[in-house]
């Protein structure tokens, strides 16, 4: 019995040591372990592991495509983590992960002293997300102009009747200042950065934002197209309806790329995975299925500075 106990102790001790060693191995992870190997002469078989982290908005898509990719390539192991766009960009810039997912251009987050970090990153745009202005169904407004939206979000207009709606106080449901969705909305729907006004509500999760707009009388906010349904009212912007077709043709301006950044040119395994994202199978399959807009279908492109050009 006594002997058994000491054995258990030693076992426990070694397992703790083994575990902590594992932890270390994980912590020191670099892009290097995604080593690709070429086998056979017929089709190139790829293998290795890929670690992606970042944007929670992009996470479900990457997870679904990764599963599909792993089914096709048995030797590949892909792990997808959330954490937010900032986390993804930080980790890929420091080579802790192979792919950093982001809702915004790296140059927008890695500024000033970090600008050279952004320069080392290679952008892969895999999908587009469009954002629509939404209100509580009883607000009584169908369309707003850019200027009206700006006046609402800066607190100049505080009642729906001032823009032709019901006599009801406007309740702003905003995103936190660091949110990529907010940055996109401010750039392309309002035209400028705005400051928070007292009494506004800030939520980060789209599900919560939708629930609140549906339940709070007079609420206004913004959501990705995939979240729209009958519990909330979707507004047009300057008369242009927020629809997939209008985004693709470039008529509706409030959209952003979903980026997957690699540090330098990707190795073979990562490249194969990113290329797979742009195949028709994924672009018309998982991308559409989850409510994103295919990047390959876009008839316009946009650069970091926001300049839109026809493709």
């Amino acid at each position: 019995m006594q002997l058994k106990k000491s054995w258990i102790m030693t076992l426990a001790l070694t397992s703790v040591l083994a575990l902590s060693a594992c932890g270390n191995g994980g912590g020191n992870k670099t892009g290097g372990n995604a080593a690709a190997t070429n086998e056979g002469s017929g089709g190139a078989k790829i293998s290795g592991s890929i670690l992606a982290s970042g944007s929670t908005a992009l996470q479900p898509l990457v997870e679904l495509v990764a599963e599909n990719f792993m089914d096709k390539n048995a030797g590949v192991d892909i792990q997808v983590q959330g954490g937010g766009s900032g986390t993804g960009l930080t980790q890929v810039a420091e080579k802790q992960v192979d792919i950093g997912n982001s809702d915004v251009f790296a140059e927008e987050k890695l500024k000033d002293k970090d600008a050279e970090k952004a320069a080392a990153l290679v952008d892969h745009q895999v999908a587009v997300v469009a954002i629509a202005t939404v209100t509580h169904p009883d607000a009584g407004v169908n369309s707003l102009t850019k200027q009206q939206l700006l006046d609402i979000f800066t607190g100049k207009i505080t009642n729906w009747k001032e823009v032709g709606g019901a006599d009801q106080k406007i309740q702003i449901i905003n995103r936190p200042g660091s949110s990529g969705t907010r940055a996109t909305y401010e750039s392309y729907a309002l035209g400028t950065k705005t400051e928070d006004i007292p009494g506004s509500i800030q939520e980060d999760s789209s599900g919560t934002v939708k629930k609140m707009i549906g339940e709070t009388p007079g609420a206004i906010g913004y959501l990705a197209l995939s979240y729209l349904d009958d519990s909330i009212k979707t507004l047009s912007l300057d008369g242009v309806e927020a629809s997939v077709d209008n985004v693709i043709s470039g008529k509706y301006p409030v959209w952003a790329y979903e980026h997957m950044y690699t540090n330098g040119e990707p190795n073979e395994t990562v490249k194969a995975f990113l290329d797979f994202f742009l195949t028709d199978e994924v672009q018309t399959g998982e991308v559409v299925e989850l409510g994103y807009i295919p990047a390959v279908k876009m008839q316009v492109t946009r650069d970091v500075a926001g300049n839109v050009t026809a493709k």
Partner: protein
Amino acid sequence: MRVKLKNSRIEKHHIEDFVGRTYMSFCVLLLITIIVSMVYFVASKGISTFTSGDVSVSDFLFGTKWSPEADTPSFGAFPFIAGSFLVTLLAALIASPLSLCAALFMTEIVPGWGKKLLQPVIELLAGIPSVVYGFIGLSVIVPFLRNNLPGQGIGVAAGALVLSVMILPTITSVAADALASLPQNLKESSYALGATRWQTISRVIIPTTFPAIMTGIVLGMARAFGEALAVQMVIGNAPFVPKSLFESASTLTSVITLGMGNTTMGSAHNNALWSMALVLMLMTFVFVFFVRLLERRNKI
């Protein structure tokens, strides 16, 4: 033969002793290293806001303007510090009397079935994940406040209500333990003098266990101060000092959880969030200090 056996037994005993001791020292050292490095990590990251020269400590602690992403950013964290203290104090005010009554009910009024009924319920409350509290707050408390009180339901009052339910188990269990460990003869002497149950509870039991009950309350407040998710869902997160209990406000934790993932490491915004984490950690130290102080008074 016999001597040899005895020797080996002594050896076994020594080995066991050695293994046990090594394992324990290893664990203790690991624990100390983890705690020290965590404190060092948070402190070094939190201080970088001030050492980089952009923000002074007083601007940070007492500044009321928070706009980290603006072209000329300002990092005043006072609204969040005020919000944290406000919801914590309100939650403690709501939860303490309820907890004390529950503890008295369990230990003094009906120790039999009352304890059997209440104890599991309170343990259950402690085990519910905070996201569930947040969701219940959003689905039940917020609409209730919106329909019956001014404002949109979201705000300090909703946050304090959600928190008060979350800290009920902490205060109740500490208070119940203290009441149960009270020497029986104290109560018996009180009854022997002709005191009623109410007199015994209010004049003998509560005063003697007061420091222990306070310990429970401080522990509950520490939990409320550090709670993030549930509060973030119902408080509204506007970076302003609220003018009423039904207005949107922020706590330190809600701002950290909303911003941390979306900012890049080393940016001024990210550093400011770490400074808030440092404030939270220092506050935890203060709470622990108070608990220790109360524990010292606790010895009757």
